[in-house]
């Protein structure tokens, strides 16, 4: 079915762009910076700048803009919901009211601001996972968290769990797709009838999926044990290398984000 084709969240698309060659730690830190600054900016114009920044990074990543945008699809409902809540439940000067419902001027701006923030948050994070393989991502996170290991933080296990989950997202989507089709072929009707009927129609898809997930998990555990997996302290096939380019990129990016924040503050004053 088509709809599963559209999920790009957590899916790595290899190309040989400059963004792909950056050290994952550099990209993770950059993304964290973006998220922080994103929640500090308030001026409407700033969100245009975020859009431009996203466009610039997309061009740099040699991915099609459509593909990056599709990353927002799974959270679209959440974004709309956030906007809705802010639109109706912000106190201030009313623009329009009907019974208990009222839309305020403050509500409109808050709705726009929060939904844009969420939108950009997802897209910037999506850019990270589109340009960084799950393996690199986990390696990067493990290294970034390694200072916490003496405090008992299971950096390696966490990274491993993350790698495995990310690695299995596409596989499970493929499996879902296959089971879904197999049941469609047996006449399952997933988009007719009321809510209850539709939910019940998913049982024939969910049960086989759970079975497969547990089977896969068990196979994986056996395979890992058979290869003597023993958690932390393993060496790397491709150790991460922080190059001067990474420092330069992170520095430049910080400067740009500082500029965005400065501009935002100046616009608000």
């Amino acid at each position: 079915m088509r709809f599963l084709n559209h999920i790009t969240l957590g899916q790595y698309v290899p190309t040989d762009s400059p963004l792909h060659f950056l050290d994952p730690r550099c990209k993770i830190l950059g993304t964290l910076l973006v998220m922080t600054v994103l929640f500090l900016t308030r001026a409407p114009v700033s969100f245009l700048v975020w859009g431009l920044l996203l466009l610039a990074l997309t061009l740099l990543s040699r991915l099609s803009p459509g593909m990056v945008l599709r990353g927002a699809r799974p959270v679209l409902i959440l974004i709309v919901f956030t906007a809705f809540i802010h639109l109706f439940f912000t106190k201030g000067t009313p623009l329009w009211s009907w019974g208990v419902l009222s839309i305020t001027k403050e509500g409109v701006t808050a709705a726009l601001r929060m939904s844009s923030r969420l939108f950009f948050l997802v897209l910037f994070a999506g850019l990270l996972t589109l340009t960084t393989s799950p393996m690199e991502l986990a390696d990067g996170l493990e290294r970034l968290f390694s200072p916490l290991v003496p405090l008992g933080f299971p950096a390696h296990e966490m990274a491993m769990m993350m790698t495995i989950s990310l690695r299995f997202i596409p596989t499970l989507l493929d499996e879902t797709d296959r089971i879904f089709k197999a049941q469609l072929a047996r006449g399952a009707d997933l988009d007719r009838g009321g809510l209850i009927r539709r939910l019940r129609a998913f049982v024939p898809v969910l049960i086989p999926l759970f079975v497969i997930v547990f089977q896969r998990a068990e196979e994986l555990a056996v395979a890992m044990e058979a290869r003597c997996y023993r958690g932390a302290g393993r060496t790397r096939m491709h150790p991460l290398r922080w190059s001067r380019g990474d420092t330069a990129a992170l520095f430049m990016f910080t400067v740009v984000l500082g500029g965005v924040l400065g501009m935002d503050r100046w616009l608000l004053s």
Partner: protein
Amino acid sequence: MSIRVTDLAHVYHQGTPLERRALDGVNLLVEPGSWVSVVGHTGSGKSTLAQHLNGLLFATRGEVEVDGVPLREDAPEILRQARKKVGLVFQYPEQQLFAETVSEEIAFAPRNWGISKERLPEVVHAAATRVGLEKALLGVNPFNLSGGQKRRVALASVLASEPDYLVLDEPTAGLDGKGKKELLSLLSQLVREGKGVVLVTHDLDTALAHSHRILVLEDGKVFALGAPQEVLDALAGASVRGIVLPPVVELSQGLKQRGWKVPITPDATTLYALIAKEGKRCDS
């Protein structure tokens, strides 16, 4: 009355870096009472083709018609009709089981197609018997069955909806010799009853022995399409990715090259008779 595939092309993930052309310019006709086999290497597009035949995938270019009605994504009623007419058994269909008992599992498809309550038990029994499931198993949880039995349950659940055409994606993979033989003879029986059968398989020997027509795919394109003997002659003269000629065919080919008067054949008995005859002539 037939499934007609015209100039079919399918591209996965079109317009993305993951774009992949899985089928290109495929033509095929599946008539009632005929057996078409599809062979080809891993990734040649066999499963992709199978899923077009009952409207689970849609043509990027070209057309698929079931009994004269073209399948289109935006016509859900037509699709339902087509899916009822064309039963599709997926690769490893045992992974689609979900019900609490075997009979519930088999009843899933006919119930979805709206069969009457009175006819349901009869249809379920008939389908179970056809695939060789004992009556005692009907009340068992399908998850407790062996792999081969699960496969039979899945097959029965498709048969129970009484399709006019049956498309099977590598149904014999992982079955033992006996299971495979039984399945193939069931398919022959269905063909004799007037159903159209499309068998996707890796096994050229099976295809040669049973089909009326064989489609050989190579990288999504048709390498050969025709009666077994025609396809065999085409394959014998060329090398196609992932296709290994059966030993008997190799032998007959070798003999023929050495001047023996034997045709290229997959059938051991025929070849043996001819060798015996030729051999006698050489002796005298």
